[in-house]
C-alpha cells in the first residue's frame, strides 16, 4: 500500500535517522511512503506565535500538494507538523473564505480530502492486527520503556478529536507490548519537555525535563521511547545537563518508536542509525542481548 509522506524539516536534518527508520520499518509492514513533492515548513509553533495568517497558510500549501498526490492518507511522523497540519485542515474546512484566499496563491489547491495520520495511528493498527508481531523476529524482553508522548501528539490548539485518550494515551504502550517490551505506567507521559525553550529559555526547559526523567527513573524504566523529534532531541541532547544540574545519577537512552520496531524486525543497529544518539543507546540493547 502506498501512502503520502510529509517528513518536515527535522526529519531532513537533525532527526534524519527517524526519516530513515520510518521508511524501512513501514516498508516491512507493507507500507510504501511517497514523499510529497516540494513540501514546505509547517511553521511549527513559531508561526502561531508570530502570524495568524502564516500559521494556516504554510501547512495549507502542503495540504494542497498532498491532495493533488491522489493518495488518500498522509503520514506525518513529527508531532509538531502533524499537529499544525491537522489543525489547519480543520480551520480551512470551517472557513471556506480563508481557504479560497489561500488557494488563490497556490498552484495546488487545498481540497481537504486527505486523511492525516500520526505514526501511532498507523502502528497501533498494525499492532492490533498482529502484523507487527508477525514481522518481529525478536522479542524486546527486558526493555522497560517509559512511553513519552509529549504535548503535540494528543493536545491541539482547537477542538480535534483523536482516537487515543488525551490525558493518558496508550497507543505507544500497545505497540511496545506487541514487540515484547514491558512499558511502565508513569505520570509524565504527556508533560512538556520545553520544546524550543531548550534553546531560548534553557533553565525552564531543563527543569521541565528533570521532572520527566526523575519520574521515569523512579518507576524503574530503563529507557524512553518517543515519536516526536523535538522531544527526542531535547531529552537526548540535554540529558547530560539536566542530570548534572539536578543530581540525577542514571541516564536513559531516548529511542524513537521506529528503532525499537527495527531492532525487533531484525534490522542491524547500523541500518537503524542507533549510533546517532547523544546518550549511549547501544549499551542497553547489548546488555539485554537484543543486538
Amino acid at each position, binding site marked *: 500500500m502506498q501512502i503520502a509522506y510529509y517528513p518536515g524539516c527535522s526529519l531532513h536534518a537533525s532527526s534524519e535517522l527517524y526519516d530513515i527508520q520510518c521508511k524501512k520499518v513501514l516498508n516491512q509492514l507493507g507500507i510504501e511512503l511517497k514523499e510529497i513533492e516540494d513540501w*514546505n515548513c509547517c511553521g511549527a509553533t513559531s508561526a502561531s506565535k*508570530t502570524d495568524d495568517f502564516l500559521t494556516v497558510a504554510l501547512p495549507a*500549501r502542503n495540504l494542497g500538494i498532498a491532495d493533488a498526490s491522489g493518495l488518500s492518507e498522509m503520514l506525518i511522523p513529527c508531532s509538531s507538523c502533524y499537529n499544525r497540519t491537522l489543525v489547519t485542515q480543520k480551520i480551512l474546512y470551517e472557513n471556506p473564505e480563508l481557504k479560497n484566499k489561500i488557494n488563490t496563491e497556490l*498552484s495546488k489547491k487545498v481540497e481537504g480530502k486527505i486523511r492525516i495520520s500520526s505514526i501511532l495511528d498507523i502502528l497501533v493498527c498494525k499492532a492490533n492486527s498482529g502484523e507487527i508481531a508477525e514481522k518481529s523476529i525478536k522479542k524486546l524482553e527486558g526493555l522497560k520503556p517509559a512511553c513519552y508522548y509529549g504535548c503535540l501528539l494528543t*493536545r491541539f490548539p482547537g477542538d480535534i478529536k483523536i482516537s487515543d485518550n488525551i490525558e493518558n494515551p496508550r497507543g505507544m504502550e500497545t505497540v511496545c507490548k506487541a514487540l515484547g517490551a514491558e512499558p511502565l505506567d508513569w505520570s509524565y507521559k504527556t508533560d512538556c519537555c520545553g520544546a524550543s*525553550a531548550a534553546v*531560548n529559555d534553557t533553565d525552564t526547559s531543563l527543569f521541565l525535563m528533570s521532572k520527566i526523567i526523575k519520574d521515569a527513573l523512579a518507576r524503574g524504566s530503563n529507557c524512553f521511547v518517543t515519536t516526536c523529534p523535538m522531544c527526542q532531541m531535547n531529552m537526548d541532547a540535554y540529558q547530560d545537563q539536566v542530570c548534572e544540574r539536578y543530581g540525577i545519577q542514571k541516564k536513559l537512552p531516548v529511542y524513537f518508536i521506529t528503532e525499537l520496531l527495527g531492532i525487533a524486525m531484525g534490522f542491524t543497529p547500523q541500518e537503524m542509525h542507533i549510533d546517532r544518539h547523544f546518550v549511549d543507546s547501544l549499551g542497553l540493547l547489548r546488555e539485554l542481548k537484543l543486538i
Partner: protein
Amino acid sequence: MSTSVLQFQPESSQTLIQEVMDRSGQNLLACYQCRRCAAGCPVGDETGVTPDRLIRMIIFGEREEALNNLLIWKCVACYTCGTRCPNNIQTARINETLKQISKEAHFEPILPKVAAFHDAFLRSTSHFGRVNELEFMGLYAMRNAKRELKHGGGWKAVADEIKKHAKLGISMMKKKRMHFRLDKIKRLFEIKRLYTKAKDEAGG
C-alpha cells in the same frame, strides 16, 4: 511575580476584550475561574501569572499587564490549559494573540531570546521554504548579538551565548546530526506570495 490586585479599567476593558476575542477566536468571557488551567500549567510556578489570571487581566482592562507579563513569553505552547478547560477556551491561543499585540504595541519582550527565536524561525522559512537548522541558528544568534550589544550585554554576553550553542553544535556534529546541505523548495515564489499576503492581512 505579579500578585498585585487587579483594578477594573472600564475605559480599556471592552476594547481589549473585543480585540483579543476577535483575533484569538476564543470566548474568554466564558471563563469562570475554576483554575484547572492554572493547575496544569507547567510554567505557572515560575511565572506567577497563570492562564486564568491572564484572562482576568484582559477582562479587567489591564492592558499593560496583559501585554507585558512573564507568562506570555514563558508559555511553552503545550496546550494543557486549553484541553482541560471545561469551557473550551484555548488560553494558549489567547497567549499567542497577546504576544502579537504586544509586538505591534512595541513592548520590549520580557524574554527577548524567545521573541528572537520565533522571528528567526519564520525568517528562515521565508528564505528557503524550509528551515535549515544552521542558517536558522545563525539568524537567531545574530539577533541576540545585536540586542546584547545595543542594550549593554556587551561582547561577553554574546560570546557566552555563542559558546553555549557551539557546544551543542559540536556534539551534534559528532553524532552526525548536523546537516550542511541546504534544503530549498522549487516553488519558493508561492511561499513569498503567502508572506506578502500575510503582511497585507496584518494591515501592512
